């Protein structure tokens, strides 16, 4: 094992190396703490970047490194791909980008595990092999799972959940098999063939696990993959006796898990339900039975502008449709006009609006919306009843009153934004097609709701033009 023994005697070079890793770990924690406020967030990020720099330089000085050509090659390729991925990806593509980076994280960890095992399998201890096996199976799973998620978000793969009979049994068999091989390898570290079987099962598990997940469940899945990537890195730390990998892996894994819990709570669903439920596929609910069915009041952009002119307070409710239409700037333009006319404008952000946690916040921030106008569900939900007009931009399930009123509905119990309580509702929507959950939306047939069909960006621009003309 080419790792340091943590209990070895004094070795100045080793102590300096471990010291660098300790400083890096502290900087990462301090950096994360900065993220608790938007004012301190950038400073936090810089601290973490400094930590990364220290850890990398400390490692490069390590006496185990004897040649630099492969390292330099890897660093150059990574930078050439990394800079565009950081600098030029549009904010609307953020979920795709995050999914792809989880794939890279999983890949790096899995490759490290394979190389470590192949180089040392003849004299690996039980713990070491157990940790390496866990690392490789998690890394491989994260890699293929994230690529699947990326494909689904990009629309290359079908976004609807793909199911087949006995799917749960198949997945559980593979999961159990992976666990059995992992335990076997821990007992018999030299059984090389089983290591590669485990690697293949890990790759397969990632595909099987994500193939059944639909678009609206993506926020939870992306968080879970984030968590797996972190846990895989922590397992690497155990295998290589490297504390900084353990700290980072724990932070990354913990963060993913916390976010996944927040997301599934916001959908009123358990983890189990997200992972094994395949929500969108089984929804053949009779629309009449859900209590919907009624007359839709359709309006034009001019009608909507007319309504807004009389409003003293407006709440905008963005959803995934805003990201698809890239309508965040059009939203901002309309809000500016309203504010200049003395109307108060706020934004209500549901935790699972969009395809990843915080998706809507980033888009609106990109459009220069001040963050003190962005409100979380709990903070604004009692305000709807005092609001003149709510504008729903491409959101659907998160404003469906069926979640409160219809016990038989698949989304019943999910916390929703009380848009239906505002005096009037303008719903911008492409068509009457149901939202992701496949459930009809009672809101759309309420007497106080006006539907404006069409591309959200275009409709918003028309509304703004109508306001300007008459204002």
């Amino acid at each position: 094992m080419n790792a340091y023994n943590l209990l070895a005697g004094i070795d100045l070079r080793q102590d300096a190396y471990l010291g660098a890793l300790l400083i890096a770990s502290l900087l990462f924690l301090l950096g994360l703490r900065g993220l608790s406020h938007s004012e301190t967030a950038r400073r936090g990020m810089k601290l973490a970047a400094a930590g990364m720099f220290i850890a990398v330089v400390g490692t490069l000085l390590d006496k185990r490194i004897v040649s630099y050509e492969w390292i330099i090659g890897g660093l150059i390729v990574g930078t050439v791909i990394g800079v565009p991925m950081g600098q030029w990806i549009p904010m609307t593509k953020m979920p795709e980008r995050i999914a792809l980076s989880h794939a890279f994280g999983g890949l790096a960890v899995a490759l490290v595990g394979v190389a470590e095992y192949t180089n040392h399998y003849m004299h690996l201890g039980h713990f070491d092999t157990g940790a390496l096996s866990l690392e490789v199976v998690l890394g491989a799973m994260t890699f293929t799972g994230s690529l699947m998620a990326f494909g689904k978000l990009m629309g290359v793969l079908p976004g609807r959940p793909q199911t087949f009979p006995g799917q749960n049994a198949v997945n559980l068999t593979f999961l159990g098999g992976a666990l059995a091989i992992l335990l076997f390898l821990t007992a018999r570290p030299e059984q090389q063939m089983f290591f590669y079987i485990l690697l293949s099962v890990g790759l397969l598990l990632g595909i099987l696990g994500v193939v059944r997940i639909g678009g609206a469940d993506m926020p939870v899945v992306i968080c879970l993959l984030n968590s797996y990537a972190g846990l895989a890195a922590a397992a690497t730390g155990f295998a290589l006796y490297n504390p900084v990998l353990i700290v980072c892996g724990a932070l990354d894994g913990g963060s993913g898990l916390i976010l996944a819990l927040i997301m599934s709570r916001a959908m009123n669903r358990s983890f189990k339900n997200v992972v094994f439920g395949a929500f969108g596929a089984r929804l053949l609910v009779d629309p009449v039975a859900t209590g919907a069915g009624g007359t839709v009041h359709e309006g034009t952009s001019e009608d909507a502008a007319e309504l807004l002119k009389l409003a003293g307070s407006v709440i905008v409710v963005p959803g995934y449709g805003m990201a698809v239409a890239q309508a965040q700037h059009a939203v901002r333009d309309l809000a500016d006009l309203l504010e200049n006319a003395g109307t108060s404008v706020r934004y209500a952000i549901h935790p699972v609006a969009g395809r990843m946690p915080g998706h809507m916040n980033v888009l609106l921030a990109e459009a220069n919306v001040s963050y003190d106008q962005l409100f979380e569900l709990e903070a604004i939900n009692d305000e709807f009843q005092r609001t003149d007009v709510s504008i729903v931009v491409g959101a659907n399930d998160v404003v469906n009153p069926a979640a409160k009123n219809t016990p038989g509905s698949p989304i019943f119990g999910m916390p929703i934004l009380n848009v239906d309580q505002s005096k009037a509702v303008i719903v911008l929507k492409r068509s009457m097609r149901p939202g992701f959950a496949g459930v009809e939306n009672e809101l759309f047939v309420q007497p106080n709701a006006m539907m404006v069909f069409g591309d959200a960006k275009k409709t918003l621009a028309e509304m703004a033009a109508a306001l300007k003309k008459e204002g």
Partner: protein
Amino acid sequence: MECENFIILLYIFVLAIFAGYQVISKVPQLLHTPLMAFTNAISGISLVASLIIAGEGRNTISSILGAVAVAAATINVVGGFLITDRMLRMFKKKERAKA
């Protein structure tokens, strides 16, 4: 020896989970996407493991695996920090035009 090392590492892991939970649960919903990009960047710390495999010159296959791992981890470090910074620069409180 292996077992004592394992226990020390477990200490580190458990304490890091605890510290991480305290810090991460205070990140507001507003910053959840930057949080994901940020943790994505620091998960590129697997770079420190990849560097050693790419540089220890054990055999060509091992070096190649290491170099690919270095590239993948570098993408996350470089891309992750750049995009986090890009996002965080956008989160501003603006002076509202007086109506």
